[in-house]
């Protein structure tokens, strides 16, 4: 089954006079893992945020799991948008855990608030997810007492609690100390193996090589090149891609 999880068509996005996404066509198949790379300021975050309706592109169409999120620059109505967002998980560079809630409450607050599960059931689900990300022993800890890697794993569990069809990662390991990057990537690999549809913005080229079905290079708001990781990394075609890979891989 190869239906599209996310489709962006002819997306133009401006901040004032600054055009950040330029006629972007981009789609993700169900079950696919796409790694999005590109220099800082090229529009990677903006592209992800458009997919979950956190930013509005002025022109173009976006569909998520068959439902129109953006129709010719017009965003879905509030209630429907909220519902659609349950289907699009987001993991942020800065974790954005809720500091006033314990780890398990961080995971269960949305399902309970949105009445998707009873309090009891959502706690059970949350425990199972904590198990999955290896943090069952931290269920009652407060976020402030976790390491960065632990925080990000909780954030992933929190996103998973909504049973999303797609998971978007915006530089999930960029804020981490190097020794904590591995544990987060490990969890992401596990999700990929489970068949989760994922779009990952990252500078971790080894992860891309190992896990991605497709690598997409965006530069200055334009998708300039994409391909299977093997081809992409061994023989990048575009000079900007070559230059970018050169700087990242020699960092």
């Amino acid at each position, binding site marked *: 089954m190869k239906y599209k999880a996310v489709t962006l068509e002819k997306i133009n996005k401006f901040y004032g006079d600054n055009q950040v996404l330029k006629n972007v066509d981009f789609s993700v198949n169900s079950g696919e893992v796409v790694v999005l790379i590109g220099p800082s300021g090229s529009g990677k975050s903006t592209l992800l945020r458009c997919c979950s309706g956190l930013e509005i592109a002025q022109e173009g169409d976006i569909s998520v799991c068959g439902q129109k999120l953006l129709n010719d620059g017009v965003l879905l109505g509030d*209630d429907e948008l*909220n519902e659609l967002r349950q289907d699009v998980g987001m993991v*942020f560079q800065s974790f*954005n855990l809720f*500091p*006033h809630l*314990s780890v398990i409450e961080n995971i269960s607050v949305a399902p309970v608030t949105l009445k998707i599960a009873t309090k009891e059931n959502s706690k059970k689900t949350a425990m199972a997810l904590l198990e999955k990300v290896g943090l069952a022993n931290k269920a009652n800890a*407060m976020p402030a007492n976790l390491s960065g890697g632990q925080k990000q794993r909780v954030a992933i569990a*929190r996103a998973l609690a909504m049973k999303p069809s797609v998971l978007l990662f915006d530089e999930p390991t960029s804020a981490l100390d190097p020794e904590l990057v591995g544990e987060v990537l490990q969890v992401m690999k596990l999700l990929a193996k489970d068949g989760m549809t994922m779009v990952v913005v990252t500078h971790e080229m080894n992860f891309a090589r190992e896990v991605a079905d497709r690598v997409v290079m965006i530069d200055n708001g334009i998708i300039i090149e994409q391909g299977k990781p093997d081809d992409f990394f061994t023989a990048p075609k575009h000079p900007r891609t070559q230059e970018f890979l050169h700087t990242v891989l020699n960092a």
Partner: protein
Amino acid sequence: MGLDLDFTPVIESFPALLDGTMITISVTIISLIIACVIGMLIGVVRSNGNSVLSCFFNVYVSVIRGTPLLVQLFIWYYGLPRVGIMLPSFLCGILGLSLYSSAYISEIVRGAIQSIEKGQMEAARSLGMSKRQGMTKIIIPQAIVRMLPPLGNEFIALIKNSALISLITIHDLMHEGTNIISTSYRDLETYLVIAVIYFVLTNISTFILRSFENRQLKSQAN
């Protein structure tokens, strides 16, 4: 020219001062509660940007903050009857103090809400929560902790400002003191005793608020 202090008249009238103190305490607490409700509402609306309501509240806050409390109290007490609204002085005092304080509290609320990192609301929204749910479940619980210290200051200010309601014939602590002076002519002694009572009130409040804040902090830090 020795200083001839005589506290006897003040001490003899102490029951009256206590009655006045009770009035001061109750007016202040009632006003604070009303001010918190109004201030919360205005603060939340204003923190959400540019609705018509928020423009209206902007004007409200700048008018209230830009004019003396005493003038406002006189408008409620002496001005309203001219347009046919006659309120008992006690209500005028509560009205004046709570409206005045609500403007300051709304600024505290707005500041606290806006101090919460943008990513918090984004995380809530990305999980599918509505703006309102994000506000009530995620933003406000965090903002309240940041509001407590400035709200404490506002409460202290309210206790002290409440002395002005004596000028619209409410029998508060200040008013009872003035009465004692008018019969005994012991102004220095009376004002000193009143000052001490206000001082005790504000410091007891500070102490209670501090311990409350500490409990809040502890419960959040687990």
